[in-house]
């Protein structure tokens, strides 16, 4: 693999006496679909928070596109091309479906506050452009019909989908999905798997997927890393992971001799 898109090198984060993530190294190449799994509390979401700048690593390096992202505010990291969804859905609850996605186009605006006040032709042209982009995205993901609905009134699966749409509106190179299948029924999960693969192909972005549901992870990921107690215990293709004794031990416990 040439220069990876995202490169975590010996990343450790410590909260008091607890090492939430320790000595983690992880590489994601352009357009790759990587899974990150592990039992509850293994530190998967913490890894996301480290990559997106919500937490700062105690030691180690995180590089994106060859440049360090450590110490940057989350919005700057998003501007560099990392977008994420959240484990517990965090949509802008008072906004409509359309506005949720529109807000994510905010950082690509070429014109600022003065244009919004003067409301000249340049502003109008840009607003039309934004509206077009948003509607295209909503159409691709089948949410165009609900554009003026409050996002709170959407069914759970649609809310998850809307979060992905919103993240894509920032035009990311790397998309972090935090348990997108949580709370979905089997049919919705199959839909989701198609959707993730489609997203990766259509938008050409790499995807890092944190997920509990083995069917989903095994079904779509090209490569899987397994975390346990903040350490990476195993990495490989789905087939390798499935029969790795360390992974089985982490999930099911060791057999007593």
């Amino acid at each position: 693999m040439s220069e990876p898109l995202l490169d975590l090198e010996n990343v450790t984060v410590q909260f008091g006496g607890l090492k939430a993530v320790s000595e983690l190294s992880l590489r994601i190449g352009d357009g790759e679909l990587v899974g990150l799994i592990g039992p509850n509390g293994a530190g998967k979401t913490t890894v996301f928070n480290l990559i997106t700048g919500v937490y700062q690593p105690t030691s180690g390096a995180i590089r994106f596109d060859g440049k360090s992202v450590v110490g940057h505010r989350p919005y700057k990291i998003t501007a560099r091309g990392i977008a994420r969804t959240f484990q517990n859905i965090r949509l802008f609850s008072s906004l409509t479906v359309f506005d949720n996605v529109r807000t994510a186009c905010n950082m690509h605006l070429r014109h600022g506050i003065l244009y919004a006040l003067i409301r000249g032709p340049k502003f109008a042209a840009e607003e039309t452009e934004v509206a077009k982009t948003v509607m295209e995205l909503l159409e691709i993901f089948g949410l165009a019909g609900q554009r003026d609905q409050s996002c709170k009134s959407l069914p759970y699966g649609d809310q998850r989908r809307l979060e992905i749409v919103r993240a894509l509106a920032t035009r990311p190179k790397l998309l972090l999905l935090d348990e997108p299948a949580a709370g979905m029924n089997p049919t919705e999960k199959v839909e989701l798997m198609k959707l993730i693969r489609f997203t990766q192909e259509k938008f050409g972005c790499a995807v890092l997927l944190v997920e509990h549901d083995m069917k989903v992870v095994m079904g779509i990921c090209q490569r899987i890393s397994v975390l346990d107690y903040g350490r990476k215990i195993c990495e490989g293709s789905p087939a390798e992971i499935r029969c790795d004794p360390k992974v089985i031990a982490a999930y099911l416990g060791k057999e007593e001799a």
Partner: protein
Amino acid sequence: MERSKVTLFSTLLLFGLISFGLNHFHVADGSGHAVTLIQKYSYYYDILLTIGINIILAVGLNLVNGYTGQFSLGHAGFMAAGAYASSWLTLSYGYSLGGGAFATTFAFVIALLLGGVAAAFSGLLVGVPSLRLKGDYLAIVTLGFNEIIKGVIQNCDALGAQRGLGGMAPSTNFFWTYAFGAVTVYVVLSLVNSTYGRGFLAVRDDEIAAEAMGINTTKYKVLAFVLGAFFAGIAGGIYAHFKQFIHPEGFNFMKSVDVVVMVILGGMGSTAGVCVAAALLTILPEVLRYVSHIEALPEWLRHIAENRMILYSLLLIVLMLTRPQGLFGAVNLKRKKA
């Protein structure tokens, strides 16, 4: 031209015409002399101007408290900054422009804008350090800054200290008050109805998600704070040149609470509601004052009306219980298309 701009300009024109009418339309007073409408109905005119000032204050604060969700309790402080800055300017330099009506008005408007800038600057000073805090903590810090601004003025001899500051030209009239009111409404609505301005609402709804969507939450919070302070400063300047006397105690914590109540009553994040609430809460005490003076009413009823502050608070409690989203809270849910 965009519809919102057409609305703004036609509203300004309308206010200009009304103002002209108020100043030049003569009616007979009680003894048969011809007087202008303003002279005849000066009490109502005063209330009308107070409503306008309160609308500017409340709509500006609504950007901070309602749309951006940062609970500020220091609005009167920024109003004071604007009031004192503009008064000091017109008192020091206003007369050097010559005493003509045009020169006075010109000096007044420039002083208003500079007063707004001074208030915005104080808003920046307050906002940058305190916007790291959330909720109650932010409210307490802004309240503290309100008192600090008041304290600085109380100890500044050039601004009259405890004596207050008086002698400003009575430049405030219907036109300027409502013109600035219309501009305030226009600015706030144009902002929040643009892609850029949706950032304010995103910050209110979920700061972490907003940041993850590439929105610089600090910038938006400070911007809302500075704009809110700017309009408070304008309102302060208008108030100063209306009452022609200002005193630090007029800009205390209670004044801030008054404006917050208007915002809450109107519905956080509903500009139309906030305007109506500003008008209602300005008129209500006057109505109660009037009721308490009607001789024909039974004694006990007049007593209740006399204690209008108690009634006023009761009314608020009832409103909060029955309509926690504010009078107009639901209106803004039906958002227009982009």
